[in-house]
């Protein structure tokens, strides 16, 4: 284990495990409560696998009412609850504690309503992100947010983390595509927020809930905005011999009025790993941009011509246009396999800081310097259009102390992101990973008001313990909550 502390589990709660499980079994179907340590072990971590802890029990409800019943029991018995979707969080957002019950939305898999005339779909939130678009395909619609984990991740997790993806430059992230939510509060009470109408008329509680990382409630049903599928999309690949000029190209494309659906960036370390792995035929250069535009064939041609003109003025090493689906796939192939390719070079941690686009070249240069200082290699692959960086720090998990070095390096990069005007996390969330860095981005009073907001929803502070807020800062709140 490494540097991120978790609070001591409450021995009193652990001792009461048989009563807690019995109470849950009284209100839930027999197969919905898992207590066998062999089975709860499957839930001991999310995709931040360096941190593990089996929960006290796991609850797998099938309906909002069952989620509410489980929450009510946990509230009455003062048991912490860790909400979980598919467990793909990269920030430890669904990491259990030994004294907590996981309530997972995995079995809430019904598509409740598809309404193309009013452009929404209503689903239970255990459905996967990709399956929402699959449901809509026959009607010519899709659901826009496209996190890289979309094959596995659920809508519940997407809402909890406000997930984005490569195409959010044009379509926005989850919060921009969420219209309504059925929410189970920590007390077990169910509230309806928003709906198929465009916009709330009171305080936007749904907007607050989206991205709250399971701190305020569990969303069991969601109304999602759907969009007509574009007629077509085509990427171009642009190679540059310097990070600076690649960054300049991004800014000039955006200023030109062309709004691509995606602008992806890969640096030379990443390119070499990708080439060795996927043989995508990428140029050997300092930086590659993949820019995707969409529309009818003529519209695409027009936009690509503009991009060619803009890039041409910056002397690219290569400008490769895809002329058909195979060539488009070849351009995306390397980018889509980048994380797998990096895994072949060794263990890595994937960071998620965001910087203002104009600060990209400076940030990349400084990351290179930090890499030399820490003696660990780093590769950069990210969504350049919105400045959301994903430095991948390579280390050897079998070498004692290497993970801690990698984490220290990662923390330095995230501090750098904040120093240049960016933020600690663009799409992965704070979780446990960046919890203790929150003070870098926010002053104490800024964090206090956020914790006051949590207090309104979760007065006993039982939901998703030890995430998002630094343990020191949240201690007085948790102690006060214990008296309620």
């Amino acid at each position: 284990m490494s540097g991120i502390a978790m609070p001591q589990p409450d021995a009193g709660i652990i001792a009461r495990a048989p009563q807690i499980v019995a109470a849950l079994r009284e209100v839930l179907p027999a197969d919905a409560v898992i207590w066998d340590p062999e089975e709860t072990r499957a839930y001991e971590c999310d995709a931040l696998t360096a941190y593990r802890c089996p929960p006290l029990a796991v609850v797998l409800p099938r309906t909002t009412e069952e989620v509410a019943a489980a929450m009510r029991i946990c509230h009455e018995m003062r048991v912490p609850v860790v909400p979980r979707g598919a467990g793909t969080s990269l920030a430890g957002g669904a990491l259990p504690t030994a004294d907590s019950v996981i309530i997972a939305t995995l079995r809430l898999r019904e598509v409740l309503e598809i309404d193309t005339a009013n452009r929404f779909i209503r689903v239970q939130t255990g459905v996967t992100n990709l399956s929402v678009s699959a449901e809509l395909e026959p009607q010519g619609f899709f659901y826009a947010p496209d996190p890289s984990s979309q094959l596995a991740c659920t809508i519940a997790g997407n809402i909890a983390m406000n997930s984005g993806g490569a195409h959010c430059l044009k379509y926005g992230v989850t919060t921009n595509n969420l219209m309504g939510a059925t929410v189970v509060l920590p007390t077990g009470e169910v509230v309806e927020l928003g709906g198929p109408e465009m916009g709330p008329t009171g305080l936007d509680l749904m907007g607050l809930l989206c991205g709250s990382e399971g701190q305020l409630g569990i969303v069991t049903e969601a109304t999602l905005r759907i969009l007509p599928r574009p007629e077509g999309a085509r990427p171009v690949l642009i190679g540059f011999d310097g990070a600076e000029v690649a960054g300049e190209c991004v800014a000039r494309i955006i200023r030109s009025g062309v709004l691509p659906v995606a602008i992806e960036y890969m640096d030379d370390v990443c390119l070499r790993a990708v080439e060795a792995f996927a043989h995508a035929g990428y140029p050997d250069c300092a930086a590659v941009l993949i820019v995707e535009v969409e529309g009818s064939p003529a519209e695409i041609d027009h936009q690509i011509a503009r991009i060619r003109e803009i890039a041409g003025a910056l002397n690219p090493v290569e400008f490769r246009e895809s002329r058909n689906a195979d060539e488009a796939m070849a351009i995306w192939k390397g980018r889509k396999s980048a994380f797998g390719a990096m895994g072949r070079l060794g263990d890595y941690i994937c960071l998620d800081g965001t910087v203002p686009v104009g600060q990209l070249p400076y940030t990349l240069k400084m990351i290179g310097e930090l890499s030399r200082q820490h003696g660990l290699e780093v590769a950069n692959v990210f969504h350049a259009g919105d400045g959301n960086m994903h430095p991948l720090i390579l280390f050897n998990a079998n070498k004692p102390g290497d993970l801690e070095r990698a984490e220290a390096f990662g923390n330095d990069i995230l501090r750098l992101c904040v120093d240049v005007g960016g933020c600690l996390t663009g799409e992965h969330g704070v979780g446990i990973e960046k919890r203790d860095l929150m003070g870098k981005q926010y002053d104490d009073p800024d964090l206090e008001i956020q914790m006051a907001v949590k207090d309104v929803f979760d007065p006993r502070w039982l939901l998703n313990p030890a995430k998002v807020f630094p343990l020191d800062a949240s201690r007085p709140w948790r102690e006060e909550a214990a008296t309620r």
Partner: protein
Amino acid sequence: MIPETPSRAGLNPASEAELGALIAERFAARQPLRLAGGGTRVETGHLPGDTLSTAAISGVVTYEPGEMTLIARAGTPLDQIEAMLAAEGQALAFEPADMRGVLGCNGTPTIGGVVAANASGPRRLLAGACRDHLLGLRFVDGQGRVLKNGGRVMKNVTGLDLGKLFCGAHGTLGVLTEVALKTLPHLPDRCTLGLHGVTVEEAVAIFSAALATPFEVSGAAFRDGTAWLRVEGLGPQMDYRRDRLLALLAPRETELLDAEATLALWRGLRDLAHFAGLDAPLWRVLVKPTDAPATVRALQALGGEASLDWGGGLVWYCGPGSAQAVRQVAPHATLVRRGGLTGPAFPPEAPAVARLSAGLRQRFDPAGILNPGLMDQ
């Protein structure tokens, strides 16, 4: 009628720090304040307290066209921001309305007021509301503390997103001092398709069909028997989208408006020119678009006129009828222009939601001094 409140002070702090000190004093003394940027978004004449304006906390902090980000102090006039963005070929894509005509007031619309009201015009349909473009904010809470949330980057999931709460809170959680907004390219080419002599049912059917196409319809509004569809684009994009939509609507006869006429028409629709200068109450009603025809008929039965925006998702109703009668047919109805009506402007919330909202207000404004009675009931 609401009696005219006797003379009150107009407070105009010149800086965030001055504002913080002023609110701290009012917090200690439990004295209410009526908040206004330029005073052009919401009627507060019936609320107690001195009027506090942020107009003097003004000026653009940064604007980076290549990053599509703008940071401005709350009191910055909206027209100053729009002119600055236009010079770079950009705009606030959510197209905030100018409500001076319908509210009969003559202040200067400010960017802080736009955010506090979550003001979003016809393009909300395609581009999202103001809240979807807010990246970060600074504000003074009800105790006088200067706080911040979010930042200036496009993607940010660091902690709780308080910006969403502030958009549409009308100052009841805190007084905005600075906002960071996403800007977008202003598409240079535009036109409008007009279909005359249609019923409200036909209009919504046309909107649903047009909005199911990939042609990025950026306005879908209806009034006086005409359905209007706006198309924008870059170069040949706009021509292509227009031609495909015309083919979709054939054989209906369609009037085509050029770029200039399009600008004028949508400005009028956005600012509700057709309901300006009247005295009757004006209601903003949110519905599921296909419910719009029934809602319009029921509202018209009360004796007034209605128009549609957002493809039918937004109904504007101007006319007589008690709040109770209007809300009976349109539960999500907000009273924008009182026109002599008293009572709450905002629709009642479900008890659990109302309790959460009250809890939040209590945390942000423990003494209840910021626009008390405006949204809480």
